[in-house]
């Protein structure tokens, strides 16, 4: 049965490359591995996103023809200048950036936690942002130039606490998630405390913020998150590669020369900053960070969560969600977070049921 006494024989046969990948040359020395299916998915998502964006700009209280929309985007004079250029376009850009940031943040945190349930809105980051923001609101700080920064501080601080408490000579993935859930619950009750203590009108305002909304967001909100994403782009490119080894067990990754502690901290920190900035911009838009990476991965069938697809899908979810939130019960406008939660919650339940089944029933 084991007649493998010819070590040199079969070597000359077909060359093996990682299945599903193409090797792309860039310059004299650059060689990149490109996942074929993921490239197709990215292309499809870009087309879908473009279509959703056009629809977003056309549809509203007044319908604007796609031709006029294009004119506005190209800077040509148009009758729709005010509706599209001033009202819808900036809000669309904020939605795109927030969605992309949540998508990448979720992908990174899920990768490190090795758990599809770990996302910034479940392990306490959104709750930390909410607690500090709502707390500030009840103390009379309602300026929208200050609140986003407080939100970022709250999110990062909560994540740092979770990380420190989950650390015991190394980061244990399950403990990280469980402690995060614990902190999320604790911080939520802090927020509730602020809400009940606070002024009625402030509480209502805080409530809307906490559902996650793009209402009233414009260029002044788009700029900070846009710059953040741009500055972090090299880090995101690094993360896409670093993800490959973090998905293996600790011993194997270490044996492959990966400085696991640092790489994980880097990935989590990046995810936390992105999630916090997105939360600071639009409030905690629930489930986007949970949903986008998982769906993206099922589409690309890669061994790690695809970052670019997650970003695109996050953007599609938020923009489409906001479009529906604006129009579904018009003239009443819903916060986009209500819509994403309505889609995300059933998905979360499905994930849990499915995860449970595959664990109890043996692998096929």
């Amino acid at each position, binding site marked *: *049965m*084991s007649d*493998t006494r010819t*070590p*040199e024989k*079969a*070597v000359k*046969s*077909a*060359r*093996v*490359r*990682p*299945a*599903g*990948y193409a*090797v792309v040359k860039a310059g004299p*020395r*650059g*060689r*990149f*591995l490109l996942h074929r299916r993921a490239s197709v998915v990215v292309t499809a998502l870009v087309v879908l996103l473009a279509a959703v964006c056009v629809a977003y700009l056309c549809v509203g209280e007044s319908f604007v023809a796609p031709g006029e929309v294009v004119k506005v985007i190209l800077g040509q004079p148009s009758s729709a200048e005010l509706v599209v250029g001033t009202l819808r376009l900036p809000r669309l850009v904020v939605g795109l950036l927030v969605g992309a940031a949540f998508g990448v943040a979720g992908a990174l945190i899920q990768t490190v936690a090795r758990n599809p349930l770990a996302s910034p809105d479940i392990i306490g980051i959104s709750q930390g942002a909410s607690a500090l923001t709502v707390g500030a609101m009840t103390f009379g700080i309602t300026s929208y130039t200050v609140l986003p920064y407080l939100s970022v501080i709250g999110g990062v601080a909560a994540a740092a606490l979770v990380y420190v408490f989950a650390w015991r000579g190394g980061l244990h993935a399950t403990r990280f998630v469980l402690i995060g859930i614990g902190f999320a619950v604790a911080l939520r009750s802090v927020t509730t405390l602020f809400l009940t203590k606070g002024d009625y009108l402030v509480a209502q305002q805080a409530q809307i913020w906490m559902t996650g909304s793009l209402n009233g967001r414009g260029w002044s909100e788009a700029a900070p998150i846009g710059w953040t994403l741009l500055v972090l782009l090299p880090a995101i*490119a*690094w993360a896409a*590669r670093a993800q*490959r*080894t973090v*998905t*293996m*067990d600790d*011993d*194997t990754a*270490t*044996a*492959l*020369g*990966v*400085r696991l502690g640092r790489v994980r901290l880097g990935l989590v920190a990046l995810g936390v900053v992105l999630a916090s900035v997105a939360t600071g911009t639009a409030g905690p838009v629930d489930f986007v960070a949970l949903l986008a990476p998982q769906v993206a991965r099922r589409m690309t*069938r*890669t*061994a*790690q969560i695809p970052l670019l697809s997650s970003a695109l899908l996050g953007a599609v979810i938020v923009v489409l969600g906001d479009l529906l939130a604006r129009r579904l019960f018009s003239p009443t406008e819903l916060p986009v977070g209500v819509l994403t939660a309505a889609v995300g919650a059933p998905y979360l339940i499905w994930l849990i049921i499915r995860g449970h089944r595959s664990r109890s029933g043996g*692998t*096929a």
Partner: protein
Amino acid sequence: MSPSRSTNASTGPAPSPTTGTARRESRLAARSLTLAYEDRTVVHELDLTVPDGQVTVIVGPNACGKSTTLRALGRLLKPRGGAVLLDGTELARIPTKEIARSIGLLPQTPVAPEAITVSDLVARGRQPHQSWWQQWSEADERAVTDAMSRTDVTALAERPVDELSGGQRQRVWIAMALAQDTDLLLLDEPTTYLDIAHQVEVLDLVRQLASPAADGTRGRTVVTVLHDLNQAARYADRLVAMKEGRIVAEGAPGDIVTAELVATVFGLEAVIVPDPVTGSPLVVPGAPWTPSTPSAPASSVSASTSAPTPGKVL
């Protein structure tokens, strides 16, 4: 150590030094290595020199610290005291990626990313040779192709690892470690979960890796932990027997495997006979328990008629 070596193993495959030149050289060594988990010391001031181009097998009873020692040799565990030296330099002073180009390690229960394909997993063994700019090279392709054909998993290249049988999966993991293309290879119980045919296949592969190539270049250095003492004696150039965190005996299996050693290390009465195939020492434990044991109450089952040799009861 003791002269109970039954036959002169003339056909033994184990010690087959072709060139006597670099025989005693060693890249990897442990110097008064003390290892501990929390405050429980598992290994005490252990000295070990791993001979280059040979198969070193560590054996010992459960919880004797053999896997812990292997983990420390592969810098997965920081020493509490002493050091592991690679080419004379403490592992702690060498960048981990650089270590990964010299030492490959396959842990006891590696975990693959969900839904990964076989070739993708094996390709990840090339990690220490790659950079962000160079994610794939000619050398990568050669190493992966070679590793997969050596372990006979080329046909599985496109299959998801989750769908493989235990034996196939283990071969894929070994392929990944081979693709890393390191001079030293540490394998932590590579035969667990495998049936006997696959065990033999894996161990034969280990021997093949350590054997010198046709052009005379030295084979790879392998350190492995094995549970089965007889397999260890068959395949090891150098056997290291551990008990309670200390080395009890080390040397060529034919020199050190004696009834006394088995009794000391495992607390087992056994007879050592020459392996009918290889001539290496074969450990045959005393007769199994039977109802006719003299100490057994006669009122039990009615099988107390003809007592065979009662074995060597302690």
